[in-house]
């Protein structure tokens, strides 16, 4: 606990140096204006620093938000999103667009098979993600496949990135490269929820975001995986290339990849963050999301211990794209389910894992393998958590499938964990 409190204090001390520039250039719908991360004294931006461009037309903002969050949830005149629901859309791999307290939050920022037009297998574009005018972008893993578009969108929309200090640095580097800016002024706003150099599993960092009505918690973790089979469990192996949907290539022929060249140069490493968001206002609804899953049983037991200290989770969205499926099946992912102990689990990242292996639309098989893994590690109640599967590409951008009413009484159970880490 002391470590956690120390970490919060360190975070607060570092905030004035984190959130910089562009506050005055916030645009119609989006951009963060959270007082908790706005420095009391904002250093003047470098005269040479690129400035946030004009916002996309309001009609484009409304169209993007309507696509991601549903016509019934978006005001067609102002683009405002209803605040009483949490609405999420799967954009592919581990990237989601979320509407929380009426604000747009991206979880990662990358698109599989990205094209310039939304006519391919992935039905959205960088342009549309930008037009949604996110206020925040949570960085799970700063690497291709996860944050290719994060710096670009953050700059264009005035969004605040959240990640480790190293991830903030990587995103800043991306932005400067993309804007051809060689100066020293900050281009992006980025809140380092985890300070530089923190070991994995050291603590649960917490960051209140008033405009989201949320407490964001993060645990630094590793996605490294063991190469040997777990001798304590029944043998398991999963082949991502098996049983591909042979119709897929006819339904969704490969198109022209995006030509804008936007990407990330973040160096590959094993660091990623597990995020936990508790919504405020007395609604007590919580989401856990992580875009990578490592072998924490052997390599980072401290991460598992920290996961178990998190407050209760209602909806858990977690990557099943583990690093050792041929020797341990989806065991590593199952351990996250066990540690988080949520009410609902959404599989994530299975589309990217399958496509890397040359297979398509295999989510049903992934679900079954995950169920096997859950049984192997002792999760014997088939209804806990309830598995909800998004099938690619059919469930990309189906906001109604991931709409939650935080006020619903059913989220509260006597067995819920109590928070051991205050946000304040």
């Amino acid at each position, binding site marked *: 606990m002391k470590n956690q409190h120390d970490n919060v204090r360190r975070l607060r001390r570092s905030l004035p140096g984190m959130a910089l520039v562009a506050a005055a250039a916030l645009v119609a719908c989006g951009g963060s204006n959270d007082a908790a991360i706005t420095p009391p004294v904002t250093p003047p931006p470098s005269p040479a620093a690129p400035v946030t461009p004009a916002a996309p037309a309001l009609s484009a903002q409304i169209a993007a938000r309507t696509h991601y969050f549903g016509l*019934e*949830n978006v005001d067609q005149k102002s683009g405002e999103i209803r605040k009483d629901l949490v609405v999420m859309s799967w954009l592919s791999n581990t990237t989601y667009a979320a509407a929380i307290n009426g604000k747009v939050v991206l979880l990662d920022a990358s698109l599989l098979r990205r094209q310039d037009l939304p006519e391919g297998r992935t039905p959205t574009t960088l342009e549309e993600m930008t037009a949604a005018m996110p206020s925040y972008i949570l960085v799970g893993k700063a690497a291709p496949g996860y944050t290719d578009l994060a710096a670009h969108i953050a700059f264009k929309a005035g969004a605040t990135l959240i990640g480790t200090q190293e991830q903030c640095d990587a995103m800043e580097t991306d932005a400067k490269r993309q804007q051809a800016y060689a100066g020293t002024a900050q281009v992006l706003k980025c809140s380092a929820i985890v300070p530089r150099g923190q070991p994995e599993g050291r603590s649960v960092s917490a960051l209140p975001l008033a405009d989201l009505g949320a407490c964001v918690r993060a645990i630094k973790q590793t996605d490294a995986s063991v190469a040997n089979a777990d001798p304590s469990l029944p043998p398991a192996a999963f082949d991502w290339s098996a049983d591909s949907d042979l119709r897929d290539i006819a339904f969704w022929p490969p198109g022209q990849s995006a030509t804008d060249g936007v990407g990330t140069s973040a160096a590959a490493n094993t660091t990623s963050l597990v995020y936990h968001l508790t919504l405020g206002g007395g609604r007590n609804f919580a989401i856990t999301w992580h875009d990578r899953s490592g072998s924490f049983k052997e390599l980072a037991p401290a991460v598992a211990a920290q996961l178990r200290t998190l407050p209760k989770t209602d909806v858990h969205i977690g990557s099943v794209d583990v690093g050792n499926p041929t020797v341990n099946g989806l065991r590593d992912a199952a351990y996250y389910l066990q540690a988080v102990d949520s009410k609902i689990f959404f599989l994530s990242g299975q589309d990217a894992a399958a496509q890397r292996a040359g297979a398509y639309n295999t989510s*049903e098989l992934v679900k079954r393998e995950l169920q096997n893994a859950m049984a192997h590690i002792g999760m014997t109640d088939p209804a806990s958590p309830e598995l909800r599967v998004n*099938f690619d590409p059919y469930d990309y951008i189906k906001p*109604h499938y*991931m709409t939650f009413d935080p006020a619903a*009484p*059913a989220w509260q159970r006597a067995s819920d964990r109590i928070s051991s880490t205050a946000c304040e």
Partner: protein
Amino acid sequence: MTKTENARIIHLAAFARRATVAATVALAGASLQAQTTGIPTGGPTSLEATVKARQHFFGFENVDAATGAVRADRLIMSWLTTTTFAVAANGKIFMLDGYINEDQVVAPPARKRTPTGLQELVDLKPEWIFIGHGHSDHTAYVANVAYRTGATMFGAAEHCTAMQTDTTRQFGAGATAKCTAVLPAGAPIGATALDLPFLKPALCLNVVRHLHGAATPRDTSIPANGIEFTAGEDPREAKLWGTGPAAFPNVRSVGSPGGDLSVMYHFTFPGSRAFSFASFDTVGPYKELAPQLIPVLSAFPATDVLIGAVSGANSPTNGLRDPAIYIRDLQPRVFIPSHHDESQRRRGAKGSAGELWKRNLLTSMNHVGIDQARQPEVRFLNDPYDYARPSLLTFDPSSARWDKTGGRANPTCN
């Protein structure tokens, strides 16, 4: 609405008084002697089972775990195969049709493709069951579920007659079907009954007799767009799902009278938005065979969410032209397809072909002249993955999306 159309309307004030064929609530007991062997009897297993069934069909977050009550401020529906849906609307629990395709006994480790069955429908404890038409792939379980739960069935008078036959055959000569006729015997195609009182104050009800599916020659006024039942099927289906004998082969419907007599139901939430949803469980080629439906459906009260059969005998010849014509005339804001799963698999197709059928529907809507701006949001359902997936079919009736200003009116419930 013309005078002729008005004449078709059956003003139900008087009709409603005599419409209840039998109102005797005759909940079956375990001791009742079934007249046909293999007929399950007895009511819902327990309150716990009812809660579990409702959580399955409507999402645990929408169900009171102590009472089984479902939140009243949403329309929540679950597709249970073919044209059968479990519905929670304004707190009322009911079913559209009552048939489970491939309700089979599948031995583990093979997996059952259909994630529900007859007993779960009983445990759901519906208050009402609406019969779209009388064929057994829509009504096989209706009489059984209704008798065992006390649910009231609704249909044309002919359907009520058939349900009484089913009830007698399954539960004995003294068993009475609780069925309310929404249309009198012999009502012609195009007959409507508006603002029926049976569901008030929770919901308002409109009905229209429409046309059962049929094959017609190719419509040469529009581009060819036929689709074979095997088109788009998933070759992995047989590997993914097990099969087995029918769980309840003797629970079926005689299917007549009223086999192809088809009724569309239209429900409205009371309130300023007049949010409405409707369902037709067979899709007829009324352009050729019943053109009198065109003005009737074109003048029908506004429909926000329309569930409609999209597959039938006319699919190979005319694709999804017929459901597109229903959409053209009813002008829903959201369209949800049904029946394509059973329709394909009954004919030997592997199924799970939603993507191709969705594309055919989109093309068909263009062909029949629906401007892009007026085309509804299509929430296509892919079998079997979208069975019992209520999040896909949850609607907030209070949303501004359903505002009727400047559009077709829904005077129902006013």
